[in-house]
């Protein structure tokens, strides 16, 4: 007999996780599809399911002094409606899935699913978000780029769960985001690009670029970004071709039933170039 759990408190959930392996289930918009079975049969869950949706303490979104905190069961639609959600995330979420899905789907689920095409990930990488993990053993704060270790691979122990996501406040002067999906709703990104910069007068004090769906995880290049920091905007623009080349060397897009690698690479670089030209 499988025992599915519907805990109301975080403690109950963590105790259950400490006892034995569970499948964490938030909105289920990934899991219900991934674990599908012949109609009429139960889903193919390999482990007892722990539904997080009733844990009231995790259903929050809150602006704190240096970051926005998003609870693990906060729906994407709630995040979209929250006044202090950064515009970038409002844009990303507004183009994700469709309203019905967004009412169930969570940020935590999008992160833990760790798809290279997960749409919020591009924003979270760009903002250097931190994932808060809890277990009976305590709490860990892990940067998003360390938490996601590969295609569908995350740094999560069996007794841990994501409790919140922290998105640091940023004061970018430029922000750009493009989702290239095969259609306008309910679409898996073929490419996603997010760019941000902070400029004052003629120089760039911060510049970041994140690419989705063209590498095994979201791709940022700390080395290139470090090199560009402090440069004059005009010099960056003059250097456009070599910057694009540097990124082109890093991208490793694939051919699949949705697109091909030539297109993915070329468009990713077009979007980067357009962003740089817009500074």
């Amino acid at each position, binding site marked *: 007999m499988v025992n599915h759990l519907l805990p109301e408190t975080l403690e109950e959930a963590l105790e259950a996780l400490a006892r034995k392996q569970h499948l964490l289930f938030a909105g289920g918009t990934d899991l219900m599809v991934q674990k599908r079975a*012949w109609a009429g*049969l139960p889903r193919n869950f390999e482990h007892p399911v722990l539904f997080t949706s009733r844990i009231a303490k995790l259903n929050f979104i809150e602006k704190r002094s240096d970051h926005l905190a998003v609870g693990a069961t906060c729906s994407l639609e709630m995040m979209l409606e929250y006044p202090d959600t950064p515009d970038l995330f409002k844009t990303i979420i507004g183009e994700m899935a469709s309203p019905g899905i967004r009412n169930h789907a969570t940020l935590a689920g999008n992160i833990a699913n760790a798809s290279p095409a997960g749409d919020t990930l591009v924003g979270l990488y760009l903002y250097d978000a931190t994932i808060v993990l809890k277990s009976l053993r305590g709490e860990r704060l892990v940067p998003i780029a360390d938490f996601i270790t590969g295609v569908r691979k995350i740094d999560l122990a069996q007794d841990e769960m994501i409790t919140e996501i922290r998105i640091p406040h940023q004061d970018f002067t430029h922000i750009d985001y*493009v989702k290239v999906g095969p259609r306008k709703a309910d679409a898996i990104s073929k490419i996603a690009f997010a760019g941000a910069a902070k400029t004052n007068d003629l120089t760039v004090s911060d510049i970041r670029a994140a690419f989705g769906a063209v590498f095994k995880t979201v791709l940022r290049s700390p080395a290139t970004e470090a090199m560009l920091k402090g440069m004059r905007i005009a010099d960056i623009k003059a250097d456009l071709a070599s910057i694009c080349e540097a990124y082109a060397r890093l991208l490793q897009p694939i051919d699949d039933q949705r697109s091909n690698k030539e*297109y993915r690479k070329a468009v990713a670089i077009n979007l980067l170039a357009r962003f740089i030209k817009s500074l």
Partner: protein
Amino acid sequence: MSETISQSLMRLDAPDKIAGRAKYVADLKMKDCLFALTVRSPIAKGKILQVSLPAMPEGYQVVDHRDIPGENIVKIIYDDQVIFPVDEVKYIGQPILLVVGPDKRIVERLAKAIKIEFREEQPVFAWENSVIRYQFTKGEGDAPFASAANTISYTYTTGYQEQAYMEPQGFIGHYDRGKIVLVGSIQCPYYVKNALIRALACDPDKVRVIQAAVGGAFGGKEEYPSLIACELAVAINKIKKPIKLIFEREEDMLVTTKRHPAQIKLAAAIGADGAIRALRAHVGIDAGADIGLSGVVLSRAMIAATGAYTIDNLAVSGDVYLTNTVPTGAFRGFGAPQMLFAIEMFIEHIAKDLGRDPLAYRLDYLAKQHDKTSTSGVFRDPILMPEMVEKAMAMSGYAAKSERYPREAGYRGIGMSFFLHGCGFTGSGEAKTIKAKVKLEKDSEDLVHILIAAVDMGQGVHTAMRKLVASIMEIPIETVIYDYPDTDQVPDSGPTVASRTMMIVGGLVARAARALKESFIPGQHQVAEEQYVQPDYIKWDEDTMQGDAYPAYSWGVTVVEVAVDPHTYQVNLEHAWSVYDCGKAIDELMVLGQADGGLAQGIAYGCLEVMEHDQGKIRQKNLTDYIIPTASDVPAMTTMLIDNPYPLGPYGAKGVGELTLVGGAPAVAKAIEMAINKRITKIPATPEAIMELIKHG
């Protein structure tokens, strides 16, 4: 009441569908029902050497070719499709046997445990094995090529298209005192019934086929259901219990019929004055592993070779190729969408190559009343295309935009397609093969029952037929009854296909309604029957493909405007405008519904819907990967209907269901072509393809 026939009623099926009360086949339940799961070929071609079954628990069985009491043939047109293979498989996903039992978990486990040993053979994917070849000529054929000043040729390519109907294919059936009864998601109850009679070698009264609520078919439920109905009937005949066979979406997309991929080679002999002296066309279509309806699809494509134009000298040929891929089949438009894309692009490309104004050049060739059709029949009825083109241009601002966009080179484009669709079956199909019969029966309470085999699959036929009868008989629509067709109750009025239902079946129903009205005796049981008779001026020679291929034609003009993103090459559909002549709308809102849906499907065929196979395996197997448009993708549409009553249609109605699809792809392709200033010869024109064109021409 004829002035108001077009006035829209609320769809009579709408409340049940919206409230979730309508019963689709998966909703139907029977006591002690068993479930069937299909075991399929994992290889594209080979011999079956051995089938090893696991130990079968009590109550679980397999059903295969040895259980077929009659012929191992799915009756369609050619006897080349088997129900279950004996010892060879021809495509990935071909059904080999069914596993049947009460518990789905066990059925699934048993199906996985079945081991089939094959000897693989080299599959054929190239188009080289022609099994049907047709040709016809008009006028001097291609003789003028010899003396032409110039020859222009292009090759056009179109891909698969998936019907993507709402609910996957399926049937539930049971054994009722010596009779096999099937209820299914179908378009053609009698196709299924006739196939069953042959597979079971039984008397016609030993099988009964009933339609369940159908949420869309688009041709996908024309001939394909006959295959699974035969499988299921064989199983019921063996086991004598209720059995349900319903596909999952992925199974459905991998193995059911799709639109034929086509390659169309066109050449024009151009005179010194730049006029088209003759046209040569070759149409190749990929049938997949079975011929199925491919011959009929090919002939409709070939007959559409000159689209909405008149060209005096023609040589048209075509081939149906067999390959070791999933069989292709009926799909809204039936060969015409492929050909209309090709010819619409071709005339435009000729004009561009000659440095002529494409629009003026095309208008010169538009077909006129009394012109000869491609098969040397006659366009007998008035053709209102010049007026329709004018209206479409005025609505869309075509003239100014088509002048401005190329000059501005701002990645915007506008495209206009001209098209027609032959209504009803091609050639002598109605008179020789279908011979439609309809029946109206008035009971002693004066309720009038419409007894026809036409199915409502979301297009609104249920409402339209009741409205037609009520309006002719001048009785309340509530007193007109039209239940889901049941072959035990209704005569064979033919399949629900080919845009024939309102024009042909509705025409007969209208006649019967008039007869019933004239002889009306209150409280008395009365019957009126009608049978199709071909108008005698219509002549068609099957062998030479000469004469009137269709009794009537519907016409259309579609304009699509796009903006192409220069960084992502994505196409934004800005707006679409259409003008249609479908004779007379029996219900305006319903025709507009067909117009919106048909155009969305047609435009998506042109720029969105990619389906391909890799070594015989379909790569896009669900709606995540197969991109049909969502409501956010479909552009705003402005539609105008022009009255041009057809004398033999009820109230003048002609076909409408397919017409609205066939012009979509060329209109959007032309718009993209203008936006990127390259020649488009292949659809779908995806962002990937557009990038390729921009970079490498």
